[in-house]
């Protein structure tokens, strides 16, 4: 059980327990959006089942004046709308917290906690009295709890009204009924409870330049801005919304005004084998192309990813990680694909990985991924996860430099080919391991036959051992070039720190918050790219011990570090989290404290 809910302003967690498919998502979005508009940093995390209708689902809103994004692990106000999970939801409320429930039906038998405050509102009855249809009543119940929360949290009703009006635009009737439901809840709370609660909000000015966006939407925007014009995919949670967003933005910004035709092509493939194949075909033919998937898709794409590594075909792939395999927890988050992505495929294969930690980075690293893929002529996998991809984060406004131009890498133009005596596709003219490529259709001199392992530097077929080895060595050299091009790690140092902590991706927000709470000074390095930048090894070398925080059982990041770097493995202490929910700051803190209590190695115990 987490800490006691306190008297606090702009620092609390509201958890909404509802039933999947009952329209609670829009009520929850309304609430979060309003809080953001009031200048208060806020995040929303979904904990949802693999189901369309009927199973329990939760939405956790964290209001944090300090701008913390992590799952805090505490629940100050639980809105228990789902009778099925009522007992569980009641038990989850932090001592001193509040439980808001629908008192239309008696629940005395289960209201057995005296360290929390119960707030019963007859939501169903109130709505049934006012609204007609069954579906409308269900939807309006959600709006009514938003109204009640507004009163309890001291949220300005005008701000809510504004968001409702924006949302429904010209649909006057809908605006009226929604506002009426909100008002019902609000007035009931004001009349029956001591409003506002000690746990409440107060307008701030910290969110004027913040937007609320999920990582998949931001990544899709990145693809649009990078100039990607082809995408192929096969539906899979939690990556589907990335492609949905890409299609939406392309529809809006990529339709040719004169003809109404598309300046893009999206193919829903028959499976992930085909999806990655299509993206490779398009990219090989000169279009920026990508695919998005999750762990199961990575497994299926592996053979072609290896092919692309050897044939040196650029492609961008988003892996929005989830728990796998098969059924069970596909709608939960994990960092379980690190090794699978790093070494996807057979033979001597390795891939460039980028690790965004939040939607902002999903946007910028998506653009970077295309530049790197084409510069390095190899697959680049952007490794995100469900927490980043599908949850609502508040992020600084995304900015765009109009002078950005895509780095298309080494491509020979018609003129260059014309001047060239002979073109050799895999000849390393510049000595950086990266060769020149050509597009089909440009010049007969540019022709080459792309193959997997069997080609020499001239692009001709070979089974010669020496030529094969030469190819592999050059690819290795290219890999070293890549280490200098991937985004550098972000290192935050504290005076006097002898220990360090390493994390990547969505663990960042938990680690950052934990460090603020930690008494001991500790340096922090967040890794953003693979191959590892030289600074990664230096960071480990320069600390007595280094905690490696990650969200999987097998310490995959730690494995990668020890496989790829010449570091002392004993220094690396794993803090692992793998229950499917996002890691919390307390989990990291507990991990550090646990080790802190342990006797030093070699000392007598």
């Amino acid at each position, binding site marked *: 059980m987490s800490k006691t809910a306190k008297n606090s302003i702009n620092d609390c967690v509201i958890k909404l327990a509802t039933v999947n498919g009952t329209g609670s998502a829009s009520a929850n979005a309304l609430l979060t959006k309003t809080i*953001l508009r009031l200048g208060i940093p806020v995040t929303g995390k979904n904990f949802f089942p693999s189901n369309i209708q009927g199973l329990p689902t939760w939405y956790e809103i964290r209001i944090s004046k300090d701008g913390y994004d992590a799952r805090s692990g505490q629940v100050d106000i639980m809105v228990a709308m789902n009778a099925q999970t009522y007992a569980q939801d009641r038990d989850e409320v932090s001592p001193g917290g509040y439980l808001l429930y629908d008192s239309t039906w008696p629940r005395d038998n289960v209201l057995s906690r005296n360290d929390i405050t119960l707030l019963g509102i007859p939501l169903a009855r109130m709505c049934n009295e006012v609204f007609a249809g069954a579906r409308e009543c269900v939807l309006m119940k959600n709006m009514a709890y938003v109204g009640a929360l507004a009163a309890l949290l001291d949220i300005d009703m005008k701000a809510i009204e504004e968001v409702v009006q924006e949302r429904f635009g010209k649909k006057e009737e809908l605006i009226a009924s929604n506002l009426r439901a909100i008002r019902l809840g609000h007035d009931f709370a004001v009349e029956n409870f001591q409003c506002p609660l000690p746990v409440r909000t107060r307008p701030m000015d910290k969110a004027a330049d*913040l*937007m*609320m966006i999920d990582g998949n*939407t931001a990544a899709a925007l990145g693809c*649009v*801005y990078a*100039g*990607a*014009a*082809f995408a*192929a995919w096969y539906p899979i949670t939690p990556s589907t919304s990335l492609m949905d967003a890409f299609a939406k*933005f392309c529809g809006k*910004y990529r339709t040719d005004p004169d*003809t*109404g*035709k*598309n*300046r*893009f*092509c999206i*193919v829903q*493939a*028959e*499976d992930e*084998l*085909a*999806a990655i*194949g*299509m*993206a*490779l*075909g*398009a*990219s*090989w*033919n*000169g*279009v920026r*192309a990508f695919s998005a998937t999750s762990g199961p898709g990575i497994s299926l794409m592996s*053979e*072609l990813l290896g092919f692309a590594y050897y*044939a040196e075909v650029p492609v961008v792939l988003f892996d929005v990680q989830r728990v796998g395999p098969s059924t069970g927890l596909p709608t939960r988050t994990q960092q379980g694909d690190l090794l699978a992505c790093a070494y996807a495929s057979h033979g001597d294969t390795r891939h460039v990985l980028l690790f965004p930690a939040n939607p902002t980075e999903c946007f910028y690293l998506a653009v970077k991924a295309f530049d790197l893929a084409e510069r390095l002529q190899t697959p680049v996998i952007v490794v995100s996860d469900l927490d980043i991809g599908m949850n609502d984060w508040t992020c600084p406004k*995304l*900015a*765009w430099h*109009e002078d*950005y*131009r895509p780095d298309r890498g080494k491509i020979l133009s018609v003129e260059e080919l014309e001047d060239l005596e002979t073109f050799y596709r895999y000849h390393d003219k510049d000595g950086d391991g990266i060769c020149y490529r*050509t*597009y*089909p*259709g440009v010049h*007969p*001199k540019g*022709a080459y*036959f*792309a193959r*997997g392992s069997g080609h020499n530097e001239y692009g001709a*077929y070979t089974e010669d051992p020496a030529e094969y080895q030469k190819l592999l060595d050059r690819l290795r050299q290219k890999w070293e070039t890549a280490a200098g091009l991937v985004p550098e790690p972000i290192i935050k140092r504290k005076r006097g720190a002898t220990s360090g902590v390493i994390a990547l991706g969505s663990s960042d927000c938990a680690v950052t918050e934990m460090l603020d709470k930690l008494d001991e000074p500790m340096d922090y390095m967040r890794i953003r790219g693979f191959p590892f930048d030289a600074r990664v090894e230096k960071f480990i070398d320069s600390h007595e011990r280094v905690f490696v925080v990650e969200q999987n059982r097998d310490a995959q990041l730690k494995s990668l570090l020890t496989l790829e770097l010449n570091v002392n493995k004993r220094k690396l202490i794993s803090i692992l989290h793998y229950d499917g929910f996002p890691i919390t700051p307390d989990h990291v803190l507990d991990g550090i404290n646990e080790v802190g209590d342990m006797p030093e190695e070699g000392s007598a115990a």
Partner: protein
Amino acid sequence: MSYITKPRLSYSGRKRNKLGLAMRDYEGGMSTLCAGCGHDSITAALIQAFFELNIPPERVVKLSGIGCSSKTPAYFLNASHGINAVHGRMPALATGANAANRDLYYIGVSGDGDSLSIGLGQFGHAIRRNLNMLYIIENNGVYGLTKGQFSASADKGSKAKTGEINAQPPIDPVLMALSLGGAFVARSFSGDKQQLVPLIKAGLMHQGFALLDVISPCVTFNDHDGSTKSYVYTREHFHETIHTDFVLAADEITVEYDEGEVVPVDLHDGSHILLRKVAPDYEPKDRGNAISYIQHHQEKGEIVTGLLYLDEQAGDLHTTSNTIDQPLNELSYDKLCPGADALEEIFEAYR
């Protein structure tokens, strides 16, 4: 596989096409297939077809999967880009490549193993999408490159070189294409260049997915007595329904024919396909009829060949995707980036 050095395929003469190119300009590297392999004859037919169509080699993209058949794109059109992908996944690469540049000619060469076993899904979906390409299956009833195992196209009762009898019914790519809505469905024989070359031309110029299933005997593993994909068996059971002639846009139709005997079909670029009935009871514009005709003759052990079904009107992947006429890979960045103002607009929508 044999390692006997063979003379490089060479084509007589100094004849040049309308681009001023010689047949040699359409050739590729030396074949490393077994002497007598049906696949080499198809390569030769391809070279002739491209030469006669006056297609600039650099405007062609060759794609293949894995197998002896899939090696052949290295043996024609040296001046074309090619991609030798992984086993059974050529259709996916072709889809992406075609999406990126709709203006090039796409030819995929596959085998019966590559297309009807490991790649059956991709093959079917490429038909469904009506991808604009010529898709050739060099069909020998076995996995040549892995040394003669039965493939999914082996007929029931067909005998392997080891003596094993195939117990399972075949997957027929032609029937499959017909039932999946294929708009150009043809079958031919590597040993019949007269039939094959015009079919290749027609398939290349057809707007959409053109399936050309070519019986192409594997001399090393499947050319013996008891095989239903041998040279002898195929010649004996060959049943041509429709003979196809191809006439370039610039040329006049000079063939003389009686009304009703030959059906001319106009292609999008102004060229024509002339369909001459060999089997009087065959109707190439009727899908249901084609299916039952083929099945009926198959039951009698006959191999029905020719341009078995043709629909010039079905829209291809670009039609259904509503993509812009200009190739996507030619769009400049300013046509793709919405710019900083749009991002401002998006920011407003996300707060």
